[in-house]
């Protein structure tokens, strides 16, 4: 047990958060620049061939449902618009980062994206979020675990073992063993990458909604909280024997009653075949 650590200590003494990969850093910069054009964004993506290829594969996947086959980044940008392209590039970049991790976390993250999308669109949740954005939020929610795997893998493994033994969610044990949980680390990584504040706060608070400063942020975090729990229940945990936390507050915040759950789960189950397609598109 290490009670002297906290997130600040970890970030000062143990963990060096990686910088945002090049292509996405440039795109984030362009998105924040009112002078930039669609063409500028397209050029920035094509300068990184690996990201460009994955972005095109994603754009042509069933997840985005374009009616015409897209063969160039410029075409994709024109068809989808900057915001969606930003999400595509972010997704492609995150897939690269996640693919370094153990298979379970990679698959869990993709399925969480599909679950968040199903809850948002079929649960008719009143959030200013498009379904493809919900997918990206879900994909990113456990990004902090990648950092913990890199820097504190033994501690993370111990937390997961204790989580199984005690039948409590891993984030509770991470706080005890590591001094912070993966959500805090992920939130800080998202801030470090200058991702939108809404993503960073949702990641930060997805296991503790009180970390949000306002109702909208809390509802975004609640969306990730229920998506995470759906994954565990559906057999896509981020580690073997994962235990889901209580989601009652999150469902209530989202305004989703039990009567809506069958339709949400139908949407979610129908999307499961996309997992293999997305992994193939990103390989």
């Amino acid at each position: 047990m290490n009670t002297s650590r906290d997130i600040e200590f970890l970030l000062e003494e143990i963990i060096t958060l990686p910088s945002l990969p090049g292509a996405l850093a440039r795109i984030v910069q362009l998105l924040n620049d009112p002078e930039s054009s669609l063409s500028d964004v397209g050029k920035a993506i094509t300068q990184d061939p690996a990201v460009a290829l994955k972005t095109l594969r994603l754009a042509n996947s069933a997840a985005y449902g374009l009616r015409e086959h897209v063969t160039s980044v410029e075409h994709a940008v024109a068809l989808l618009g900057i915001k969606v392209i930003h999400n595509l590039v972010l997704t492609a970049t995150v897939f690269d980062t996640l693919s370094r991790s153990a298979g379970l976390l990679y698959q869990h993250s993709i399925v969480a994206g599909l679950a968040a999308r199903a809850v948002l669109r079929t649960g008719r949740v009143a959030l200013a979020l498009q379904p493809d954005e919900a997918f990206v939020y879900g994909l990113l929610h456990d990004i902090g675990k990648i950092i913990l795997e890199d820097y504190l893998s033994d501690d993370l493994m111990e937390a997961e073992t204790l989580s199984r033994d005690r039948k409590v969610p891993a984030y509770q044990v991470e706080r005890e063993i590591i001094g912070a949980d993966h959500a805090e680390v992920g939130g800080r990584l998202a801030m470090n990458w200058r991702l939108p504040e809404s993503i960073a706060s949702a990641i930060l608070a997805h296991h503790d909604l009180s970390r949000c400063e306002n109702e909208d942020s809390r509802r975004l975090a609640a969306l990730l909280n229920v998506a995470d729990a759906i994954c565990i229940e559906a057999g896509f945990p981020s580690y073997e024997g994962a235990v889901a936390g209580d989601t009652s507050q999150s469902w209530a915040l989202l305004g989703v009653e039990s009567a809506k759950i069958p339709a949400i789960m139908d949407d979610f189950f129908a999307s499961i075949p996309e997992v293999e397609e997305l992994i193939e598109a990103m390989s």
Partner: protein
Amino acid sequence: MVGPLTLCDGARGQVVLVGPRNAPGGALVVFQDEEQGPVESLPLATILERLAPADVVAILCAQERQFGECGLPALDAS
């Protein structure tokens, strides 16, 4: 059999899977009072409002795993 379940109103039952959600039967919640009185079984669809959302998710996942074709993996027994 999926297992025991406590409803929002405190009633206790057992969830039994007898078929997929879109078939007659589907998941049933079986109730029997403490005096071992008559057994009552109600289809899941008729008592959704008495269940917590997380319980509905769990039952539907179990049902899909048993009867569905989307390819949910088996749950880890550990």
